[in-house]
């Protein structure tokens, strides 16, 4: 059967509401993300598409606020253009017949932002970019591509979560808690976060080192809590990513991942990214949680915009990283 014939068959099956059978290694691999009938996949992808574009729009206006406030060397005019384009994409995503065009328009805005910020672009932006690239694949004909896109999004999310743990292993700073000790030494929110586990004199010692001096250190503490916590982080990240891909453990792994990401990102004061990644994890749960929670996140984003422009408190929680 040719590819055109397969796609025609897929469209007729979709119209009939029949699940599309998997073929080949690629489909089987993607299928590990779960079985979805086309209505379920369509609902999840549609809600996630609206969320992603809302996130992109808000993040873009926050970037503009940051660039103006900190004189980041980026053109405010071009940032505003990108924000307007992505916002228009979000607007399109709300109209059922035109929703498929929303991500395509937003992609143009994202490309402009990438061009403006590269090679300093923050990793959080790439997560958003890859997710929008995937939802762009949903075409005009409903219930044709949503299963492919949904599985792609779920695999992408699991891979990123897995790698955030694997990279910690590869760099070797988490076995003894050295990275956490280093960050405590830099002061600020990490020092506050670990004040319960590290004695004050140890914190003072870590903060006395100058990190741009050869041989500064040792950035290591003997408190078992720090070592246990440090190792637990990457074990959880990698372990949960694997468990997300197994049907029996998927829902529990998703809930645990959402909790883990929320705690870590709140501690890091990166609430905007926390909302993005939590929404990428919601499709792993049974039920239309992306759709159910969309109003809540919309309110949260309105608050974030207000806080960034000084209208509401809490601006220190929502500074989106840009460069």
């Amino acid at each position, binding site marked *: 059967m040719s590819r055109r014939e397969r796609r025609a068959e897929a469209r007729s099956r979709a119209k009939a509401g029949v699940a599309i059978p998997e073929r080949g290694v*690629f489909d089987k691999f*993607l299928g590990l993300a779960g079985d979805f009938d086309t209505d379920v996949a369509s609902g999840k992808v549609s809600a996630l598409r609206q969320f992603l574009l809302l996130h992109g729009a808000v993040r873009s206006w926050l970037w503009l606020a940051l660039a103006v406030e900190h004189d980041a060397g980026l053109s405010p005019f071009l940032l505003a253009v990108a924000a307007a384009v992505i916002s228009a994409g979000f607007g399109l995503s709300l109209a059922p017949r035109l929703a498929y065009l929303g991500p395509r328009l937003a992609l143009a805005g994202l490309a402009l932002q990438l061009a403006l910020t590269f*090679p*300093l*672009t*923050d*990793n959080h932006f*790439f*997560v958003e970019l*890859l997710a929008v*690239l*995937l939802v762009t*694949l949903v075409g005009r004909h409903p219930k044709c*591509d949503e299963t*492919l*896109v949904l*599985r*792609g999004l779920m*695999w*992408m999310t699991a*891979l*990123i979560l*897995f*790698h*955030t743990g*694997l*990279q*910690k292993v*590869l*760099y*070797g*700073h*988490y*076995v*003894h808690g*050295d*990275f956490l*000790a*280093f*960050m405590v030494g830099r002061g600020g929110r990490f020092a506050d976060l670990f004040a319960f586990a590290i004695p004050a004199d140890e914190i003072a010692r870590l903060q006395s*080192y100058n*990190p*741009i*001096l*050869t*041989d*500064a*250190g*040792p*950035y*290591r503490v003997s408190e078992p809590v720090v070592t246990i916590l440090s190792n637990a982080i990457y074990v959880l990240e990698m372990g949960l990513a694997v468990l997300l891909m197994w049907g029996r453990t998927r829902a529990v792994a998703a809930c645990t991942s959402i909790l883990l990401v929320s705690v870590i990102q709140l501690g*890091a004061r990166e609430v905007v990214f926390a909302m993005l990644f939590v929404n990428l994890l919601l499709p792993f749960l049974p039920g239309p949680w992306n759709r159910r929670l969309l109003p809540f996140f919309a309110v949260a984003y309105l608050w974030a915009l207000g806080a960034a422009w000084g209208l509401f408190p809490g601006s220190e929680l929502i500074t989106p990283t840009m460069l």
Partner: protein
Amino acid sequence: MKEAVVTFVLLWAGVWPLIHRGLVARYDLNPWKHSGWAMYSTPKPPIVVAVLKRVEKGHAVLDERTLPSAARDALDRFRTRRHAIGKFAEPRDAAQAILETSSDVGSLVVMVQTFHLDPTTARMTSVMDRYVYSRRDFR
């Protein structure tokens, strides 16, 4: 075509970070950038850049504050790029800007010091890179 895009995204998310890890080790690429998903995996302290000008009996440190703003800006731009893309950024443009605006400097050396946390000793180590430029290089 759509399957190809999905494959591309999954390769980017799943395979590129391993390549990125190698580029960090070899070329000092910033581990916190370029979608290597290695934020919070390792520190990335600021780099130290010093410019030395040739004098009669060796080299002397050039006080950046005495440089014209165009040269200072070029040096800052190099620092930023170097911190992001490591050894893929060389200070040639900054060196040219300094030589063009400082008639008393015949040749100069740009020293770039980068710092890393050693996972064995938990102490900072550093690597020094040296770039030598003269007016002949820009004729």
